[in-house]
């Protein structure tokens, strides 16, 4: 299908984009890579009156390490993170998750912040951000710059804490901690498809922070004990996510994936690591 009509504005910088957002509010949408939004527009699930293109906004195009965080500006494409050789030392969980995101043809254009702003519950970048305790930076022309913890930013399927006149200008991934093991794995119908279940783990001494994507309406993070109690707590976690049946998988199958893959991932099964 073809998108409904809209005005197109190419913003030269962040300020111009924010001005447009202030002027048009809910009628406007920001477009960066467009790898999620264009599909939504083509299917007319969204019909904004104004589309604000930030691909040329060079002040949103930065990738830097600062205050113990990797800061990613809104115009940075996924391929740029994937090609960053130091990423595996900076944010190893993200380095493991990046190859799972779509295909190389979509990572070439898709942006990191765009995936966060879109807030698909099965998306990998939001899951990593929540699991690591990262931050989403929102800006508007009138209001203050807000730094929202990722766990509060995601509020449901394609629903976030962002107000209509705000835009996601940056996301911040905490750098790797010493003595933490990071692991990522997911199951999809086909590599690059939406995850049926995606798991991200930060394994510490005696406990694990386990993030689950693709099951609940948003990425969900739980702290579980390691050792003999792990199996029971994974089962409790699996039941707490409110898994639903859909055309791709049944709710019991999703729960089973959380239990089994969770255990394999945490207890270092070779199969789970072969990503």
């Amino acid at each position, binding site marked *: 299908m073809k*998108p409904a009509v*809209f005005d197109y504005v190419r913003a030269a910088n962040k300020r111009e984009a924010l001005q447009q957002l202030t002027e048009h509010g809910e009628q406007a949408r920001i477009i960066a890579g467009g790898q999620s939004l*264009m599909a939504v527009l083509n299917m007319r699930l969204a019909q904004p009156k104004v589309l604000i293109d930030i691909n040329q906004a060079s002040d949103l195009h930065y990738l830097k390490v600062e205050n113990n965080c990797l800061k990613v500006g809104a115009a940075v494409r996924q391929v740029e993170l994937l090609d960053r050789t130091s990423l595996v030392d900076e944010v190893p969980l993200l380095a493991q998750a990046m190859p799972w995101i779509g295909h190389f043809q979509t990572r070439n254009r898709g942006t990191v912040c765009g995936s966060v702003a879109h807030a698909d519950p099965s998306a990998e970048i939001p899951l990593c951000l929540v699991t690591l305790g990262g931050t989403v930076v929102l800006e508007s022309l009138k209001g203050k710059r807000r730094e929202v913890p990722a766990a509060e930013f995601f509020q449901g399927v394609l629903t976030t804490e962002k107000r209509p006149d705000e835009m996601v200008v940056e996301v911040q991934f905490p750098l790797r901690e010493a003595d933490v093991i990071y692991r990522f794995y997911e199951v999809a119908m086909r590599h690059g498809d939406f995850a049926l279940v995606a798991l991200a783990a930060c394994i510490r001494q005696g406990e694990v922070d386990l993030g689950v994507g693709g099951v609940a309406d948003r990425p969900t993070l739980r702290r579980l004990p390691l050792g003999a109690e792990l199996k029971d707590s994974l089962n409790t976690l699996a039941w707490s996510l409110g898994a639903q049946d859909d055309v791709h998988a049944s709710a019991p199958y999703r729960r089973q994936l959380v239990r089994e893959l969770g255990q394999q991932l945490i207890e270092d099964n070779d199969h789970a690591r072969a990503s």
Partner: protein
Amino acid sequence: MHVRADQRFPIQIELNGRQREGLAEPRMQLCDFLRHELGTTGVHVGCEHGVCGACTVLVDGVASRSCLMLAVQAHERRIDTVESLSRDNIMNDLQQAFSRHHALQCGFCTAGILMSCVEFLERVPSPDENQVRDMLSGHLCRCTGYTGMVRAVLEVAQQRQETLVENNNDV
């Protein structure tokens, strides 16, 4: 730059090495612009939501879905389509290998796959089979089962590497 919804904007692109211009409303997808305005009908439009990969073209040398991009976004950029591959009606090495290995049947998906392969082989000059299959996972082909494509890409990669070595030895 502000283009009204009903305005037909003059878009300038470098298409397959030539400067071209055409008109497009903001809502026109790049794939439709390339086909209907500029006549490069080698760009095939399949699913229109980025899944099938048939419409893949190179934008500034980078493989991208032309259905997930607006024509206005391509203004002043360089676009390469499958028409850029052959010279004087002679197919390039990749196209010939596809033909040799039966890597296509109906051909609808082929134009997009070839364009992905062009960028892929620049980024990964000596790929293994897994890497080729990973690259092809961004495309749907309902005829071939992909086996011929994998063979074709691996063969071209090897031939190009050998040519590179020979040329270096000549110098």
